[in-house]
């Protein structure tokens, strides 16, 4: 009898343990209601517009506050905008959880691309094409920025914060020391790299546990080989990720890894912890292909070291017809979408236009940002930022980061496979095949 009681007690205990752990999993889908009731409110009552953003720290916080104050103090619509900032890392999950329980904020920030398209498809972002065309924004904002705020034929967001392009930061002193010049072609770039390897310096500071960092090499190589058509076709389903330009990108990455162009243990280094910058600062590495937000980061770390930095766009590929002016990056970086209607939508949109108002733009430039405004190059004094804006203005096309542009399910496969390319644990054709399978599966599912 006693034994049986014990057995039952044991089983019960086991059941509780299993159950409590499953609650951990279930929490993923279910804690949403708790989250939103305990979290900040999403939709203002009556005349209040709630704006979710990531302005938790200076200088971003000051930019948001200034623009929103400007709106609240000048508007005669009767609406007021309340800013609800959330820390960047948790923001995306918080937004998804809020939406899953139907509690989407009136105005919110996204990074456009795949996730924004999911929000639109789920009915949490309203088209603003008419409002947009009637406003001053078409004259103020860069065309490339507007293009990245579109889904199908409508505009769904207002771009505003930063022009961030991927390009190569390099140490001018190290280049001079080894008698090197800024490479114009990938062949020249490889010669530069070989020289550094011979002299015991890692050519590229890359921290790839973060995955999107290595993806920049893949995107740029693929764009220089075949332009943007192969990518656009593959996404549309008319082409394939097994196209030669993606195979080329994969092969180059593998080749460069074997030749020692990247730091040891590249897939364990973390960009978030600044391990790539560390290599640059210690002058153990000479170059870094990264987004142009590095300007602000390096300046913050050391003004003195920043003096040594130069910048050039990813070089052209010899013998390829692809337009070398094509840039990979985001023209805007932050995009405001709207989940409200009629009068409220007009008021919220009006608030979003304040971010491109001259006094706010000046403040952003002072804070080291490059807002996506036409003629911004005249306001900017930093030499690298000037080069970046020039590259943006002269680009025939700008491709948003793959991991941001692709549907999230495919983006993850891209990140995973490109990391494996750097680890030499996957062959380029296998990586391409996996990408294509993921894309195909997504297209088939969304066609249903």
């Amino acid at each position, binding site marked *: 009898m006693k*034994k049986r009681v014990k*057995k039952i007690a*044991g*089983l019960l205990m*086991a059941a509780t*343990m*299993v*159950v*409590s*752990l*499953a*609650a*951990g*999993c*279930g*929490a*993923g*889908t*279910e*804690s949403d209601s708790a989250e939103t009731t305990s979290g900040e409110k999403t939709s203002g009552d009556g005349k209040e517009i709630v704006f979710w953003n990531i302005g938790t720290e200076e200088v971003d916080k000051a930019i948001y506050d200034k623009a929103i104050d400007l709106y609240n103090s000048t508007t005669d619509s009767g609406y007021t905008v309340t800013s609800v900032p959330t820390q960047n890392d948790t923001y*995306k*999950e918080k937004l*998804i959880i809020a*939406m*899953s329980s*139907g509690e989407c904020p009136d105005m919110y920030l996204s990074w456009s691309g795949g*996730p924004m398209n*999911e*929000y639109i*498809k*789920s*009915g*949490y972002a309203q088209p603003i094409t008419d409002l947009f065309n009637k406003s001053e924004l078409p004259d103020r904002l860069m065309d490339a920025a507007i293009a990245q705020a579109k889904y199908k034929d409508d505009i769904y967001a207002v771009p505003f914060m930063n022009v961030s392009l991927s390009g190569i930061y390099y140490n001018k002193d190290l280049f001079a020391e080894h008698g090197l010049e800024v490479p114009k072609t990938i062949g020249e770039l490889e010669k530069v790299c070989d020289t550094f390897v011979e002299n015991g310096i890692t050519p590229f500071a890359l921290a*790839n*546990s973060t*995955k999107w960092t290595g993806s920049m090499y893949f995107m740029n190589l693929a764009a220089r080989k075949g332009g943007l058509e192969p990518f656009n076709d593959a996404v549309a389903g008319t082409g394939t990720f097994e196209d030669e330009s993606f195979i080329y990108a994969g092969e180059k990455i593998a080749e460069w890894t074997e030749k020692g162009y990247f*730091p*040891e*243990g*590249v*897939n*364990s*280094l*973390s960009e978030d*912890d600044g*391990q790539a910058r*560390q290599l640059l600062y210690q002058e*153990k590495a000479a170059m870094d292909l990264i987004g142009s937000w590095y300007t602000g980061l390096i300046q913050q770390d050391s003004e003195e070291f920043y003096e040594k930095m130069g910048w050039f766009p990813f070089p052209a590929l010899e013998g390829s017809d692809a337009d070398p002016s094509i840039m990979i990056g985001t023209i805007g970086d932050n995009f405001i979408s709207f989940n409200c209607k009629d009068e409220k939508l007009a008021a919220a949109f009006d608030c979003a236009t304040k971010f491109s108002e001259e006094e706010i733009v000046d403040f952003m430039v002072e804070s080291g940002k490059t807002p996506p405004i036409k003629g911004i190059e005249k306001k900017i004094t930093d030499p690298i930022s000037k080069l970046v804006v020039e590259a943006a203005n002269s680009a025939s096309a700008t491709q948003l980061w793959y991991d941001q542009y692709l*549907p*999230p*399910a495919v983006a*993850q496969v891209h990140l*995973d496979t490109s*990391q*494996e390319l750097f*680890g030499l*644990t*996957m062959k380029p054709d296998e990586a391409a095949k996996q990408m294509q399978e993921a894309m195909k599966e997504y297209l088939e*599912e969304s066609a*249903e």
Partner: protein
Amino acid sequence: MEKGVISLAARRKREIHTAAIMFLLPVAVLMAIYIFYPIIDTFITSFYKWNGISADKSMVGFRNWAKLIADQNFWTAFKNNIVVMVLSICIQIPIGLALATLIDFGGKRMTIFKVLWFIPLLMSSVAIGFLFTYALATNGGIFSAISQLFGRGNIDLLGNPNTALFTVIGVIAWQFTPFYMVYCMAAYSNISTDVYEAAIIDGANKGQYFRKIAFPLLTPSLKSAAILSMVGSLKYFDLVYVMTNGGPGTSTELMATYMYKQSFVKFNMGYGSAVAGGMFILITVVSLLTMKLLNRDRGRE
């Protein structure tokens, strides 16, 4: 007379029942809302195609489950979980027992170690994750620095798919061994001093006392420790999420990190729920099997 006694006992019994229900009710309600309902809803969600945010979900029947069964990444994750489980049990419990034995035999002198060895358990997993990411860093980490002292190159532990999982398991062991140490210490304190004294008077030395007396008496506690460790390993998430996020490739992917990615990164809430459901089933089966095995052993004794 006799009748009155019976009814008094019955009344008492009834009162105890009422009291029990009253006391259990709050917990039962909380469990129903936060544990049972989510589990049921997870299973329901697993039959839908849903991106996690839109208002409309579409019923797809068993498609998510069929996909799960054919999904190599999920089975890789399960295999990794099993590796974590086996190694956790084989590393953490023996070391925990050894440390507890040292402390038990050492008496007062060991108090300082009792405190020191307990520290890892007090730290949050995320902090431990970051700490070890720095310590294990290929460039400038502790292991690389030691290796360079001997004139060798840097050591890449987390970026190498062959070593990443074992490295993470090592860190998990660092974190949880103290738990099993405390667990075993508690078990030791349940052994009466009379038993120890009797053994010593009978001429047993400490080794014999441990092998012949203490260890058999500790066995039931060790079994439950093994079950705890097993369930803990199968649902493990936080350290892996912080240190490697499943990478490089899928080399450290666990079922829980895979579920998280499907649900929140890839916008496949339906499939993510199927992964959670799959986890639930697998863990239940493994737990019950183990429980049965252990109970059979007990029956034999």
